[in-house]
């Protein structure tokens, strides 16, 4: 963990700078989703050996990545993209807080 953190931070920052400098939206999407996952790593490790949070977060982040890449891929025009944005928000809204509540460690398990 001690060595992994600096390497991950430098990789994410480099990826973000490259995406911004070269205007690479797909790279920006991958880095953005990875950043969101990275800030949750501490919470996952606090819950070890319970792996439910890691599994649930992986599913959510993969879905987020898929939606963002799909939106990038289909280009402009029409209202489909707009509706997809709204639908994804509506689907995630109850799921994410529920995942938090269900995977919240009881006080005796907390570090």
């Amino acid at each position, binding site marked *: 963990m001690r060595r992994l*953190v600096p390497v991950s931070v430098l990789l994410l920052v480099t990826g973000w700078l490259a995406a911004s400098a070269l205007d690479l939206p797909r790279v920006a999407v991958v880095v953005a989703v990875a*950043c*969101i996952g990275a800030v949750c790593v501490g919470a996952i490790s606090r819950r070890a050996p319970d792996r439910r949070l890691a599994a649930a977060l992986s599913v959510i982040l993969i879905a987020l990545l898929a939606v963002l890449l799909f939106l*990038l891929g289909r280009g402009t025009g029409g209202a489909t993209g707009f509706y997809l944005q709204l639908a*994804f928000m509506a689907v995630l*809204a109850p799921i*994410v*807080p529920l995942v938090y509540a269900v995977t919240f460690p009881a006080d005796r398990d907390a570090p």
Partner: protein
Amino acid sequence: MILWILLATALAAFALWGWRHTRSAQAFFTASRTVGPVLAGIGGTAAGLSAFVFVGGPGYFAAVGAASLWIIFSAPLTGALQCWAVGERVVSLVRRHDCLTVPDLVAARFGEGWPRGLTALAVTVGAVATLAVQVKGAAIAGEVLLGVPGWLVGGAAVAATVLYSAAGGMRTGILAEAAQGVIMAAAAVALAVFALARAGGPRQAVATIAELRPELLDPWGGPGPTASIGLFLLFALGTCAQPHYLQKFLLLRDRESLRWLPAVMTGALLAVLTVWIGVGLGGTALWLRGELSFHSPDQLAPTLLASTGSRVFIIIAAVAVVAAVMSTAASLLNLVAAAITRDLPQALGRTPTPSLGPARVATLGAGVAAAALALMSNRPVALLGVLGWGTFTAALLPVMVLGLSWKGAARRGAIAALAIGPLVQLSAEWARTTGALAIRWEPGLLGAAAGAVALVVLSKRKTGQ
């Protein structure tokens, strides 16, 4: 007139109650840690959502369309993300070190002096800028909706907030914020339904935009895909670095309160954000049909409501905007008071006075400074809002997320991150304004990235030594 007299009397009674029940720094800055998930969740959301949502949001939708939704696209994630990334660590630090303020948390992790001082400075500067957004939003709403001078409405909202915040700190602040949050959510839903109904329903509104300005339905329109993803990330991660959000973790009565906090926050957040989507979509459709006209996108929501001639909706909108302004202002005023009267003196090696007098005076001073800044600034509400959010993100994200969780983080890395982050962000903001930096470079993220690199590189060197 009778209504105003009743409101002023109720406000004075509330402030008096706060004054009598707030006798210690712990009561003033953390409401004596008696707050549960419902109060903290609704209050925290109300504090986080400001006039920016009611005035700037629909206006930004009119300007860039669906691309504006990237600012709120992370809304379902942010409640849980805050708890995962910082909330659990903050509650743990509060238990062990009895922290009262955000700079207390940084000092508990990285020691006294520079870490506390730089955090307090970032909180003060960012909070005054964000307070200015509140005053400006109220001023615009007052001018267009109520037809009275903007400075009067903005000044009155801040003065009322200063009154109960100076008297009772967060003990009165969190109660007022929660009540204002409920008002905001109800008003937002009502206004969104009204705007969409007036535009002929959501489908008709979308059809109008698709016919007259199809580019507004493009999720990647406006600033372009890379910049849009930057906004999404800024607002997703930025929630972990906003001191008025972090402050709510300091108020929690126990660790178990965290469990349902994201559910309350997400529900409240999405209810209020309906105004962004509903008024943005409906108002934009009406504007494209020529049924509305305005000089600046910020005037979309007020103009839409004023055009109805319906006194009820105008009052609902005015109340919602003022509630949004006051809820955010109360937390920010308290944060500035804490930074000026506790953290900056402590950073300089002085013992803060146990008396609440200086904190109450500082609350008043912060209100006056923000009002002056708002009335002198010509930037639109949305841009001022993004600037304040970005400053907090650049300054605090590396130390709050990485610094609190990563055991290898060292003091000098944290100091460098706190100094470099906002410097890079403000420089990038200036460079973007002059055209020297492309729009796809998000200044807040750039600052946070620079701060994160400084934190790991300097901490690594220290570890290596």
